């Protein structure tokens, strides 16, 4: 058991730290007043990081990456936080969608898309979730229909799409065959976000900010070479993205900003609160959970380093983070009073953000089902959708609603 850097990792960390120290004055701030200018600056900064080998650390060398392991990826992330500069803008592209294209894309797709993605020249968005397909992602209804000339016509709606309003491309899961069971009739596509028939609308959250979008597709034309991973193989391709999503969240948990020290610092300034047994009990309990998440992250990293893929139990770390962060926001608001709920306050923002995060990447309830079944081996919930063609399933659902 060893949590310390090896001599090679010490050297690598030192090189990363030295580069960041030399170039940190060129970095843009984390947030900017003018969004367009800020996005531009963040894209340029991603380009600098990529050129220095600090983006796509685990990507293969021949595709522009560094060919290094998850430990080096985490070291770069830790050093970027330490330097107080922003990380890459397109975490979703480089962390999740790029690896999906690397695993399933054609050679043409790899050479066309990966370079501009890595350097921030083209930002990507993930077009998976729909209003009626979240935890049950295989229920997507966005429909792509094959045309005589080999092209496709896409119609439907996606939601919770981060960065859609300035993305160049999206990776989209669509139904291409409704007459087979739902997991079988799906195909993954690359969609140009400036295509005719695409409408993007900001989706305001509890805080009032619009960090996500709804994206509408009205008979959008996609070329034949837009398919990733083969027609009808969309579910397998999506699982790759979801695995990298778990890794990106799991290995990046420290940079989510929900750290025990942050809540303690907010309370330490109040001389009365810091001595109140009830405040201390609440702070202690949520801190225990956040410290556990930190070391669960190291466990995941260690497992990856030994060549193991973390299973769905890694999702428990997200459950714990959200629970503890909610308890932390609640505690700070109790101590600070209504000032914590000032619209400009970091706490108001955190308190507003967390209820949605609870369902991000799949609701906590469905995650607990999945872990109960796959990890603990408990018997599955009775399922009414197994082996039924998607079109029949939809008809049954409509009949069910009509009967109530």
């Amino acid at each position, binding site marked *: 058991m060893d949590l310390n850097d090896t001599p090679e990792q010490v050297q690598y960390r030192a090189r990363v730290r030295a580069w960041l120290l030399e170039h940190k004055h060129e970095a843009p701030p984390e947030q900017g007043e003018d969004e367009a200018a800020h996005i531009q600056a963040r894209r340029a900064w991603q380009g600098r990081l990529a050129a220095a080998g600090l983006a796509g650390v685990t990507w293969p060398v021949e595709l522009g990456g560094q060919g290094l392991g998850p430990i080096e990826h985490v070291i770069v992330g830790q050093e970027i936080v330490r330097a107080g500069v922003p990380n890459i803008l397109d975490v979703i592209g480089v962390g999740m969608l790029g690896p999906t294209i690397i695993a399933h894309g054609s050679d043409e797709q790899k050479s066309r898309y990966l370079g501009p993605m890595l350097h921030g020249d083209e930002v990507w968005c993930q077009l998976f979730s729909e209003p009626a397909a979240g935890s049950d992602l295989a229920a997507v209804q966005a429909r792509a229909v094959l045309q005589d000339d080999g092209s496709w016509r896409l119609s439907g709606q996606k939601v919770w799409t981060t960065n859609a309003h300035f993305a160049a491309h999206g990776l989209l899961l669509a139904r291409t065959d409704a007459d087979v069971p739902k997991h079988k009739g799906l195909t993954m596509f690359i969609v140009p976000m400036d295509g005719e028939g695409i409408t993007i609308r900001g989706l305001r959250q509890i805080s009032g900010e619009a960090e996500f979008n709804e994206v509408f597709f009205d008979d959008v034309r996609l070329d034949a070479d837009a398919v990733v991973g083969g027609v009808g193989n969309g579910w397998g391709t999506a699982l790759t993205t979801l695995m990298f999503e778990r890794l990106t969240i799991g290995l990046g948990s420290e940079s989510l900003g929900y750290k025990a020290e942050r809540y303690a610092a907010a309370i330490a300034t109040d001389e009365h609160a810091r001595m109140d047994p009830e405040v201390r009990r609440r702070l202690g309990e949520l801190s225990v959970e956040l410290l556990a998440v930190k070391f669960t992250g190291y466990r995941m990293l260690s497992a990856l380093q030994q060549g193991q893929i973390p299973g769905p*139990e890694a999702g428990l770390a997200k459950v714990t983070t959200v629970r503890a962060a909610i308890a932390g926001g609640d505690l700070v608001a109790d101590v600070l009073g209504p000032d914590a709920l000032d619209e400009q306050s970091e706490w108001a923002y955190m308190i507003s953000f967390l209820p949605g995060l609870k369902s991000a990447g799949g609701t906590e309830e469905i995650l607990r089902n999945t872990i109960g079944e796959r990890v603990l081996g408990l018997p599955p919930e009775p399922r009414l959708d197994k082996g039924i063609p998607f079109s029949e399933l939809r008809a049954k659902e409509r009949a069910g609603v009509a009967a109530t």
Partner: protein
Amino acid sequence: MNLELTDEQSFLREAAREALSRVKTVAAAREALEDPAGLPDLWPTACEAGWAGLLVSEENGGAGLSAFDAMLVMTEAGRVLAGIELLGHLPASALLDAAGDERTGAVAEGDLRACFVAAQPPGDLDVHWTVEPPSGSVRVQAPVLAADGTVSGSVAWVPDAPGADVYVVVATSAADGAPVAVAVDAAKATVHSATRYDATRSLGHVSLAAAPGTVLAGIGAAELTRAWFLAQALLAAESLGAVETALSVSIAYAKERFTFGRAIGSYQAVKHSLVEVLRLRENTYALLLYAGWAYEDRPDEFALAASAARSSGGHALDYASRAMISVHGGIGATWEHDAPLFFRRAQLAQRLLGGVGGATDRVAGELLNAA
């Protein structure tokens, strides 16, 4: 970074599991509720396995293993509710070893069983070294070392005190209030057995009236703080083992028990509760890794890490033992089943050595102090 167990650690764990499987410890835990004398003496098993000298350096006749290795053994003991006097012995043996005390060799062999009469170190709100009171919530000051070298004071609810050969008592010096460790032979101490609720847990009230002893050389606040938090981590590790058994027994039952035509484990209410046990189990294990690492490499963080592990392990066992009863339905609340034994283990363990609440408060205190 490698957090997987080494081959040696896997072997240590398997050997512990094998050694403890030779005794029907869970059945003994039930029988001992009615006849405490019937509890098997597992100390010879511990000595034979080398656990008595686990934390004693090799030059003093021990195995020179790490705190995390000790936690692995404690987890195995907790898994089968084995009553072995390691919680008292291990921190005491580490202090005797560090001081180079002449008894260390015999303690490492297990010929002498040591017992740590612990005191909780000062925190951000309390400047005193305090010990458990016989009753109530107000902690009392640690025993005092007089100028003539004798120790006086009382410490209640000391794990593994009955029958120990040498007590390593945390006391404060009458001269300057500095904490010291004093080794007191059993003949000079008065110990009243005080077993409660969990028959596998040996507890005693230790009274010292101008008892002569040996002040352990070179042992001060840092070493005694480390020893207290080592005990916290060991108790957390022991709880983890009990959590793992509670979980696996509950899962097995949830798969085979049917109601309304379905295995009860298919109901979300049952499934989610068992996943909650898993979540608390994973958290506790991660924090034990933290504690093991901090003990060796991050001494400044060990109080935080061990307190967090204790808090997590205590909550995990409380939840797991209640879930075990609920999943088994009515039978889980009867002596027909093992669940009450795990519940009893949880109830008492939460209240020992400063309590789970005290550990949680220490987590807050450490973080507030550093903020």
